[in-house]
């Protein structure tokens, strides 16, 4: 059965590594639904959050192939239920729509969004949430003709109380030293 999985990858910061990781998906014809890459809490270690829609058997194999990449420190996968995740969306609407009625203001209040910037021509609204929520807000705002819209890739945390990355790195260092 296919479903959504969140793949998390911790890696060194090397040129070309993103391609090496995406090749694992391309080769198996698995589409990447969303991808976020940024530096983790530990300087020099980068964190990838990759969302795919596939079977558990296939995600397991993909993760072990990713972990095999020389510059990858660690890779694992979780279902949506096992993670806390968010996406951020920005919406640009015409400012005059705000003058015409208080509808937009109410939508913003009720959806927990906020206004980032107001100019004479446009107003930029920001909302974080799951895709369904940011999409629902888009549908609501679009009655006032959304001028521009962007949604980010997913950021996600496990429900573990702490991120075990630094522990992992210490263990890895000790392990490699013991192999000498």
């Amino acid at each position, binding site marked *: 059965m296919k479903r959504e999985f969140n793949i998390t990858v911790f890696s060194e910061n090397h040129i070309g590594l993103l391609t090496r990781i995406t090749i694992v998906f391309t080769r198996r014809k698995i589409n990447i639904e969303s991808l976020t890459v940024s530096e983790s809490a530990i300087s020099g270690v980068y964190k990838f959050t990759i969302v795919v829609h596939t079977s558990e058997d296939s995600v397991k194999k993909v993760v072990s192939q990713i972990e095999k990449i*020389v510059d990858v*420190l660690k890779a694992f996968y979780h279902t949506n239920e096992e993670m806390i995740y968010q996406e951020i969306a920005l919406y640009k609407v015409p400012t005059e729509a705000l003058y015409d009625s208080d509808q937009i203001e109410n939508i913003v209040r009720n959806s927990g969004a906020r206004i980032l910037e107001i100019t004479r021509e446009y107003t930029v609204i920001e909302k974080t949430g799951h895709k369904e929520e940011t999409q629902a807000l888009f549908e609501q705002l679009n009655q006032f003709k959304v001028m521009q819209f962007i949604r980010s890739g997913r950021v996600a945390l496990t429900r573990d109380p702490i991120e075990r990355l630094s522990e992992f790195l210490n263990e890895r260092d000790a392990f490699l030293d013991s192999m000498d």
Partner: protein
Amino acid sequence: MNKEPMKVSGSEAVILSLLEEGVEVIFGYPGGAIMPIYDSLYDYDKKITHILTRHEQGAAHAAEGYAKITGRAGVCFATSGPGATNLVTGIADAMIDSIPMVCITGQVASPLLGTDAFQESDVLGISMPITKWNYQITTPEEIPEAIAQAFFIAQTGRPGPVLLDITKDAQFGELEFNYKKCRKIRSYVPENPVDPFKVKEAAELIDQSKRPLLLFGQGVIISRAEAELQAFIEKTGIPAAWTLLGLSALPSEHPLNVGMLGMHGNYGPNVLTNEADLIIAVGMRFDDRVTGKVSAYARDAKIVHLDIDPAEINKIIKADVAVLGDAKKSLKMLTDNVKQNSHKEWLDQFNKAYQTEFEKVIEKDLHPTKAGLTMGEAISLISEKTNNEAILVTDVGQHQMVAARYFRFKHSRSFVSSGGLGTMGYGLPAAMGAQLAAPDRTVVTVIGDGGFQMTIQELGTIVQNKLPVKIILLNNNFLGMVRQWQQLFFEKRYSFTELVNPDFLMIAKGFGMEGKKVSSRENLDEAIAEMVSFDGPYLLEVVVEKEDNVFPMVPSGASVSHILLEP
């Protein structure tokens, strides 16, 4: 090594780094973007041998052949653009067959990267899916460390090819040279320590089993675990079958060696895979050529899988017990944990299956009564005349399967063949590499008339370097394996498989190579003897039956139980 740092050019640093890694032979082809490195090489011709191949693909396969025999990384050089792209087939072959290889390619100067400069191609991008690791060097200072990492990555864990792309300005620039071998990389775990609990679990299954079968692959050779494998099967009395790349790890005459697995393997190990109650897979990856139809594979068996690569566990066949780590260590621990045993009746079933195969297939192959020569009789005779001690290199196709079936081996690291990728054109250049790796051994390469013409230009390299490679061309004027499939599965519609061939002896002569052509049985023995005793490279063309087939055969997609002994 901690000598006083000295100022050298980037290109000289490349050569010095290779010397630090103990490199003795480089296979390559010069061109614009790698000229500074070749210029530095000119000063080191006493310390390092460079073999100028006739095509970069030849360099890559030669490096593979060299690596297979020595167990150390084969090294090749190529220039940017077409030079690098010509390496691609060889790199892909090394990747799928886990061969340590370090490829060094020249690249346009760094300010020109991405400008479509002359002979620029995105070698890093192109080689990414087919290398274990690759890296582009744009400053001279990076050279020693990158080369040290390249050798460490290529040669440790599950080996594989790596590629370093060095821009021309990095080759021209200067650096303080100070070489330090790489011993670890934070993000890379070459092998996991063997888990003693997993070994105990595996040993329990082994002790309980009534019909165990061990399958071994190249992992045994890579980890130099041949003695440990033998000790394990001798203690437990478990019959052992091999994958194509595992061939020669266990002597052919060993009483527990029950033959080859897979599509053209032996009858016994294939059908009895589905009778076994336990499969112990060592350093092999359940390739589709081995398993046939996966859902009908080893149905009644528990699976114990020993492998160094965690990604191989449960990839194709689910393991009941997986023992991660180096085969030499895990086999040793396993042997210590299992009880002495024997499985005489079970082994008898393999011997019976062999009798059936002998009557239906082997007899006809080795002692044919029809006029035309068979590939089997030629190969069997070559094996005999070389006292079963030669290194056998094959190309890809019918002759490859026949060679694997009928050549006999006494020593490990004696069989060189393109397994996973099935690269036609591999044989001739790989044989050069094997001969350079083992100058004192007889290297014979068996090649079909199709594959021979894919890299035939390497005859020039063989002659120029006086490599005494013995080439046996099994000529049926067909792309035989494809023709066999067309006969069996495409109603004999021989679509573009017949070849009008050149006069191969005249071609050999043009290159300055001796040779002979034989097409009748009464001359075969003498012709082979003459070839074996000839001092220098030699081409023996054996004209074989035009439409012979390789049997047994597990048809594509069929279960190993449904192996055919005849059409």
